[in-house]
């Protein structure tokens, strides 16, 4: 790691100010992704702004027909929160499959969404559920938020403060975990809700995406059979030592079927 100053502001306003004053400062939430990157010297922030002392970034609440989750809420909290388990159980089940207990006890939903790892779990749920990402300066629909590999629509110095998930009628999730790293080889989150049917795919391409052909098929007929013959084109999918693009394309269909069955 290169050296950095460390600040732990106790209010959102102070954190935003610290980030505005120093363009080379970086926020740190769980550190589960940022610290490994710093150890590899992939990053050289002048200062780390620790978000763990900011009350405004914590908490899970129901607001009308949505569940609003603070950016600093940890994966284990999403997995075990009674309100989320009741309103969007598939989201809680998804959180319970992230990494392992040690990772879930420190890693946060805000850090994961801001990082937008192609294999991260949450982006697929945000896309399928039609979530809204709330920052210190605006609200961004999930469709506009995930821009590309490790890239979001947020500007430098912009802080994610939470995410609002409309409560669906039904939702389900299935993924094939890489047996060693446990990251998603391909995962599919399906939801039927106020905004229609959403199908979000992670792990397969450079960025999570919506499978619109499957969305149309499920809107007409909500059943695993409806997606069974839909083939995801392999052109833009990832090929690596873990699997070819063709293999991942096939997984999109298999995981979509399982996700619909999971939703019931």
């Amino acid at each position, binding site marked *: *790691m290169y*050296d*950095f*100053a*460390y600040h*732990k502001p106790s209010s959102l306003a102070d954190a935003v100010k610290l980030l505005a004053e120093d363009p080379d400062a970086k926020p*740190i939430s769980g*550190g*589960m992704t940022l*610290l*490994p990157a*710093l*150890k590899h010297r992939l990053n050289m922030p002048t200062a*780390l702004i*620790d978000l*763990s002392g900011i009350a405004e970034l914590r908490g899970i609440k129901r607001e009308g027909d949505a569940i609003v989750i603070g950016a600093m809420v940890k994966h*284990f909290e999403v997995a075990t929160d009674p309100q989320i388990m009741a309103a969007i159980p598939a989201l809680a089940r998804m959180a319970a499959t992230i*990494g*392992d*207990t*040690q*990772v879930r*006890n*420190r890693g946060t939903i805000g850090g994961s969404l801001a990082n937008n790892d192609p294999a991260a779990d949450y982006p697929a749920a945000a896309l399928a559920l039609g979530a809204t990402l709330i920052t210190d300066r605006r609200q961004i629909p999930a469709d506009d938020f995930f821009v590309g590999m490790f890239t979001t629509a947020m500007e430098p110095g912009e802080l994610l403060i939470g995410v609002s998930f409309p409560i669906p009628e039904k939702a389900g999730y299935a993924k094939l975990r890489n047996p060693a*790293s*446990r990251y998603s080889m391909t995962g599919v989150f399906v939801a039927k809700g106020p905004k229609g049917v959403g199908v979000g795919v992670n792990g397969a391409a450079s960025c999570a995406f919506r499978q619109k052909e499957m969305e149309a098929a499920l809107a007409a007929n909500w059943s695993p059979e409806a997606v069974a013959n839909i083939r995801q084109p392999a052109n833009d999918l990832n090929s690596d030592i873990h699997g070819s693009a063709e293999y991942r394309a096939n997984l999109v269909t298999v995981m979509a079927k399982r996700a619909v069955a999971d939703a019931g």
Partner: protein
Amino acid sequence: MSEAHHPAAAPPRAVPPAPDGDWPIATLTLRVNGQAHRLAMDTRTTLLDALRDHLGLTGAKPGCNQGACGACTVLIDGKRMNACLTLAVATQGQEITTIEGLAEGEALHPMQQAFIDHDAFQCGYCTPGQIISAVACIREGHAGSAEEIREFMSGNLCRCGAYPNIVKAVQDVAAKGGA
């Protein structure tokens, strides 16, 4: 190595002198195994390095140093976490428990005894992390079946492959009323 190389509680080493570079130094209080320690260290120091290099508590081990192997697992406010992916400065005001804090004097913690009874290790490098994690696994209520134990102990890798006996040790302690 002989026993003499593994004293139960190594005397804390002196705080290294402030380096002569101009990088940021944090002065902080770490609460470890019920004791408060006032220390000065580079802000980059991970909790793992602080425990090992500043306090001489070498139970928690550096393995992958990227949060994947669990050899560095400690409890922070009762929750298991990877000390290698935690900055020491970020743990102020929190209570840290390491493997050195489990035994009561000469009396081993039931989980330590169970690991011996079930031969739940070979080289022993991952063992402190396994034991801390196993204690938390039971306290979380995730030690029901062998399958559940395997899932909730998945953050702790054992390259010797002692998993079957680790599961038995956890089941044994869970059956005898917990950790």
